[in-house]
């Protein structure tokens, strides 16, 4: 684990760059990360997904997978993949400051 400065804030991240303290997240961090990851600019649809992922993780204790995002954020599966190309699970988690979807091992 290490920390880095982004969008004027210091955040704790793991070896892969995922935030480990969800409470340190701000929308400005998501915007800065979206630039780094090459998916800027973030549209309304992106924000709907990111907001859902944050709320759902807080309530549920684990990050939502694609089906759950589609059901909860009002986007289709195709749109979700267009918004977050190659693996929305991981990209959404990265930008929303929640853990990436995991298995038990």
């Amino acid at each position: 684990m290490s920390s880095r400065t982004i969008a004027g804030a210091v955040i704790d991240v793991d070896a892969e760059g995922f935030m480990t303290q969800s409470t340190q997240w701000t929308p400005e961090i998501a915007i800065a990360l979206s630039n780094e990851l090459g998916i800027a600019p973030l549209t309304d649809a992106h924000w709907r997904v990111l907001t859902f992922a944050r709320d759902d993780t807080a309530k549920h204790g684990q990050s939502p997978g694609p089906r759950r995002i589609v059901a909860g954020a009002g986007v289709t599966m195709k749109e979700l993949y267009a918004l977050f190309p190659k693996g929305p699970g991981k990209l959404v988690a990265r930008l929303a400051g929640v853990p990436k979807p995991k298995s038990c091992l």
Partner: protein
Amino acid sequence: MKNLLIIGAGTAGTIVANRMSRDLRGWAVTVVDPGADHAYQAGLLHVPFDMLDEASITRPRTSTLGPHVRWVREAVRAIDTSGRTVETREGGKYDYDIIVIASGCRIRPDLTEGLTGEGWGTTAFDFYTQAGSSALKRALAAFEGGRLVVNVVEMPIKCPVAPLEFLFLADAYFTERKMRDRVELVYATPLDAAFTKPIAARTLGHLLDQKGISVETEFSTAEVDGGARVVRSFDDREVAYDLLVSIPTHSGADFIETSGLGNELAFVPADKNTLAVDGHENVFVLGDAGDFPTSKAGSVAHFQADALESNLVRATRGLGPLPTFDGHANCFVETGHGKALLIDFNYETEPLTGDYPVPGVGPFSLLEESRANHAGKMAFRWLYWNALLRGRPLPVPAHMSLAGKHLPTTPT
């Protein structure tokens, strides 16, 4: 007489029914389950490789339920939580004072475009059902070589390590049949790695290379084209196969959706520590039917039953539930050639290395291959029928313990 009604007499429902029928006075304990037999599902992994025969993994349900449990052999159609009644597909109506949902989950190959079309049952199989694992056994025996793809369609699935175990056992099986060089083994997973927890990834990552298994990660299955024998992902990647072993999408029972109690896949949202269903004081859920942030595993069903027992007794006395379940899971993971791993974890603690259950002694070793672990896995079937289902205490603690585990010195 008051009524405790339990829906489903699988691993979870059977333990709860047997325990509660001993614990409660003045209460009738009823389970509703349409199936004549009880299956030991962990054995489904061994059937395709001829390590266990089909007959040894089922028993008549009557032999698993205690003398004071009433079994209604019907299928629940809906729960009316305001009227406190359950209706069955056969037209039965049953009143309850407290209800426990233990209806597990099932595979839904019908939810993936093309999966049940051409090739289903000839070049594409599941091993999560008895019919599927038996058919796959015949297909493996007849397999002459080529590309065998194990594809997890989406999470959550039962026993999330079973697909990897299948690959490890397949590597050993084809090696023993002296045809390993003619078989390519591929794992297509929606997650970003085969091992997703840091310490497991570090300790076990070598197993895939060592066994020659290639991994296609972040592969979210959109459709299966059985004619062309390819699996396609939502981002238009293709994985070709000669033999497909699919772990289809899982969902809860229909009645959960009908009764308005489920999420998008008909799993029941509930408090992860008390097991009380959101918004209801007399409705509880445990096992695979629940939407809990831990594995869908028999060991979880067992540890949840331990926690639920006291909360059900409290509920019969009008007391609220206590947050007693910690997410504990404990699973043997077959690695082939007579060896296995053991993992032990909960909501807070990822799988760690160490000894289990006695520090410094074992006999089982955590996150490390050993013959003792494999012997433990195979012996567990006896414990399952003779101790676990009967609700007898097993020699393992319900709560996860850090004793014997090696804590990470550097944060992960």
